[in-house]
C-alpha cells in the first residue's frame, strides 16, 4: 500500500515538474482555451432560442464569420449542434436535441467490473 502511495507521490511530483517545464506554453494554451470557451458559450447562447445562420451569429457575437463556422463545425462533430433548414444562401444551426451532455461530462463507470 505504501508502495503505491509512494508511486502516486512520485507521479505527482513528476507531473509538477513537467508542468513547470512547459509553464509558458501551458499559460498560452490556457488563454486560448478561455477564448474558445467564451466563443462556444456565446455561440450556444445565440442558438439557444431560435438558432441562426453563420452571418447572424457572427453579427450578434462579434466573432468573425469564418471562426463561427469553425466552431459550429467542431460542435457539430461532437454532437452538440445540428444543422436545420436553409435560410437564403445559408443554413441555420440549432442546439442538438438530447445533446449528449453525458458523454462530455459524465465519468466512465469503472466500478462495474463483473469479472
Amino acid at each position, binding site marked *: 500500500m505504501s508502495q503505491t502511495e509512494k508511486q502516486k507521490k512520485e507521479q505527482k511530483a513528476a507531473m509538477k515538474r513537467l508542468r513547470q517545464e512547459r509553464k509558458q506554453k501551458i499559460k498560452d494554451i490556457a488563454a486560448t482555451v478561455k477564448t474558445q470557451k467564451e466563443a462556444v458559450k456565446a455561440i450556444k447562447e445565440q442558438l439557444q432560442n431560435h438558432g441562426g445562420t453563420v452571418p447572424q451569429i457572427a453579427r450578434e457575437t462579434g466573432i468573425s464569420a469564418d471562426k463561427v463556422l469553425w466552431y459550429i463545425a467542431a460542435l457539430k462533430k461532437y454532437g452538440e449542434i445540428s444543422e436545420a433548414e436553409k435560410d437564403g444562401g445559408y443554413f441555420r444551426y440549432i442546439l442538438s436535441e438530447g445533446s*449528449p451532455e*453525458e*458523454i462530455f461530462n*459524465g465519468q*466512465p463507470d*469503472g466500478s*462495474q*467490473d*463483473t469479472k
Partner: protein
Amino acid sequence: MTDKKTDKETIPAKGKVGVYICYCGGNISDHVEVEKVRESMEKIPGVEVARTDMFMCSDPGQEMIMQDLKSGTVDRVVVASCAPSLHETTFRSAISRAGANPYIYEHANIREQVSWVHHGDQATDKAIRLVAAATAKAEGLKPLEPIRMEARQHVTVIGGGIAGLRTAKDLADCGVAVALIEKSPFLGGQIAQLERLAPTGDPAADIVTELAGEVLGDPGITVHTCSLVETFNGYVGNFTLGVKKRPPDTDCEKLSSLNPSGRTPGEFIPFKGFYPESVAARAEELSIETGVVVLATGFKSYTPRRGEYGYAEFPEVITLPELIRIMAENKTTDNCLEINGRQVRSMAMIHCVGSRQIPGIHPEDESGNFNEYCSRTCCSATLDTAGTIRQSYPGTRIFELYRDIRTYGRGQEELYEQAAKNKVVFLRFEADESPEVIRSNDHDDFPLRVKVKDVLTFGEEVEVPVDLVVLATGMEPNNVSELVDMMKLPVGPDRFLLEVHPKLRPVELPVGGILLAGTCQAPMDVGEACSAAAAAAVKAAVLLGRGYVELDPFVAEVDLEKCRGTGACVEACLNEGALNLVEMEVDGEMVQRAQVTSALCWGCGACVAVCSENAIDINGWTLKQYEAMVDIIVADEATA
C-alpha cells in the same frame, strides 16, 4: 417463438451458446445497461453462459472466452461489443487459439449501432434484441473450413509482347514454370514497330532483345510461337488449354520473305521482332495444364479510314508508325527529311487520329464503334519524333496540330518543351473543327495544305503548306473475340478487356485465376505495360505460392435431400459455371441435381432467393438464420 423451435429441429448441431458482452469502459455501459442485457441473455434457451467484461477485447476478456470453449461449456460464441470491422478477427483468432472452429462466431454491434446513437432505456432494449438476434443466428452456425484447392505451379501467358515477356520472366524468377504462347513467329509485339521509346530514348530493339533474351534463356519458361489457344477448361489452379502450333499463312509468307533459313534464332529483326526459333514445318497440337492464365494480348495501331485527313487519297499522308519505319529504313544525312524520294521541307503532324472520338462529330467505324478513349502514348511519341526530326533534319519544318497535349508522365513535359525549343509550331483545334488536308493549286510549291481553325490564333483559319502529313494514330485492342468467348472474359465499352475494379483489383478478371497484363486492358506505354505485367505476375505468384488456393468458406451448399433439380438456381447464378445440374443416382433413379463448384462460387446468394424448395443456402449466412433474427426482432418481449 414457435418458428425458432422448428428451425432448431432442422439444424442437426444444436449449439451451446456463450454470450459475452462488453462494457467498452463506459462507451457501451454509459448508455446500455450491460448487466440487464446479460440477465436477458441468460434466460434464452440454448444460451449456456452470458458474461460481461470491461474490455472483452483485452487479454483477460479473450481468455474468458477461450476457457469456456476449452472446457466444453460452449460451442458457439457471441460477442456483443463494437463494430465487427474492429474486432471480429480478434475474436475469431481467439476461438482458433482455443482449438475451436473460428466460424462458430457471431458478432453483435452494440457500440457504433447502439450506445453511440441511442440513449436511455430504449438503448438497452435495442441492445437486448440485437444480442438475442445474434444468439439466434449463432445457434444455426456450423463449423466451416476454408475451401482449399490444389493449384498447379504453372502459369500460361498469352501474348509475347513486352507485357507477356515481363510477366513470364518475373514468374520464372520466382520459381514458377511458365508457358508463353505467341501467335506470330516473333517476340516483342508492337514495340518492334518502334525505333526508340519516348521519353527516355531507349532503342526499342535493345529493350526487346534484352527481355526476350532473358525469357529464352530461362529454363523455366517454354516459349511457343506461331501458337493459338483453341480450347479452354477448368478453374483457378486447374486450367487446361488446348494449343495449336502453326504459323498463319500470312506469317508464313512474311517468314519466307525474310529467308528464315538465313536467320539465327535469337536475332532481332527490325519491325518484325525477336526471332526465337525456327518454325515447325507441320502443325502441332498440345495441351497445357496450368494454374493461372495471364492475358497479354496487346493492341493494334488504328488504321485511318480512307479519306480521313486525306489518308489513302494522297500519297503524302501517312501514319506515325509508317513514318517511323520509313525513317528507320532510309537514314540520310541531308538537311531535309526525305520520304519516298521526296524532300520534306514542311510537315504537319495531326494528333488524336482514331482516339478521343466523339459520337455525333466523328464517324463510327464499319462495326459501329467509336474510340472515345485517349490512346495515352501518341502525344509523347509524336513530340519525340518531331524533336528527332528537327535535330537530324533542320531543314524540315514541323507543325503539330493537337487538341490537348497530354504529356502527363515523367520526362514527357520536357519532350513537349524540347519540341518547342526545336521550333516545332503548334496549332490547336477543337474536336468539332478538325483540320482539313487539301491538295494545293498546281502552281503551289507544296503539294498539300492543311487548313485549320486555330484556337491559339483566336479562331482564325490558318493554312499550312506541307510536303507530308503524319497522322498520330491511336491504339485499338487486338481482336481476341475467340478468347473472350472461350474464357468468358468481360469486355468494356471501349472494347479493351475489363478488370474487376480499377483500384481494388486492377489486374484481375472476375474469372478466378485469369489475369490481365498490358495494353489488352487499356492503352499504356512500355513502362506502364511492364508495371502492369509485373503486377499481374505478383498476383499469379500469390495465387500459386502456397501450392493451393484458399477461398472463403461462405459459398453456396445444396441440400440434396430437398433439391428437386429444377435448375432455377443455375439460371440465377451470377458467375457462370459456379452452379451446374448434374446427373446422380437417388434411390436407384438417375435424377438431375444442382451442384456447386465452390472454387467459382462468389457466395452472393442469388441462388438462395430462387429455390422454391429452400434447398440451397450460403454457408455461414443462411436464410434461416436471417428469419430467426427477424423473429427475435419482432417478438413482443425482447427475449421471449
